């Protein structure tokens, strides 16, 4: 069974530390895929994103997604780290790391995890613009469709 690590944190995420944690002293990993989701500045309009989450459920749901990926692909390690609270442009919102002997398992499991995080993890983004406006980010139809495709057998 894969090593699964999940964390919902309010501090900045460190990709280097997470890769190091997964790969240090290991001779059995051939492929590591990382996905880093960053806060964009929207052409300078955005001052910050505020990430609300559902404590308790968020951890459970993210862990469930990690375990689903580990059950579906031959991966030795999976880490999912997600910020909550205020995030500034250029900072990391979400970090996914998957490791495997084989590259396709590492790629596909990371993409699966991102598609399910978007549609299943109880987080909500609110935009704070430099001009002082505040608005909830709307969910994207494209994210539902991205998740849907994993329900087909492949």
């Amino acid at each position, binding site marked *: 069974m894969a090593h699964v690590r999940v964390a919902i944190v309010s501090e900045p995420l460190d990709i280097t530390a997470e890769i190091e944690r997964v790969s240090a002293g290991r001779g059995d990993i051939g492929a590591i895929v990382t996905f880093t*989701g960053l806060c964009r500045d929207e052409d300078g309009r955005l001052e910050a994103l505020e*990430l*609300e*989450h*559902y404590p*308790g*459920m968020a951890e*459970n*749901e993210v862990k469930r997604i990690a375990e689903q990926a580990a059950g579906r692909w031959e991966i030795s390690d999976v880490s999912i780290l*997600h910020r909550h609270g205020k995030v500034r442009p250029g900072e990391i*919102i*979400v970090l996914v790391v998957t490791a495997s002997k084989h590259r396709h398992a590492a790629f596909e499991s990371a993409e699966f995890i*991102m598609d399910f*995080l*978007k*549609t*299943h*993890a*109880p*987080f*909500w*983004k*609110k935009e704070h613009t430099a001009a002082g406006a505040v608005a*909830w*980010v*709307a*969910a994207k139809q494209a994210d539902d469709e991205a998740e849907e495709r994993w329900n087909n057998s492949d």
Partner: protein
Amino acid sequence: MKLVYFAWVRERIGMAEETVDPPRSVETVADLLGWLRTRGDSYDIALGESGAIRVALDHDHADHDASIAGIREVALFPPMTGG
């Protein structure tokens, strides 16, 4: 039964959580949403587009036709935008 609200559902209702005791006729999530909307304008505005309301029962995603029998915590929120 504890109700918890998130994002614009929370803002429109005007609180993050409350404890309610719905009548026996409220058996499903859909029943609960209908009953809540009778409790005031803020609920009606928050839950009016019921297709946009997502639900979790004791931390598990659920559909609107799910039974709420025995559930301790019902969460109501908009479609998620994490990741």
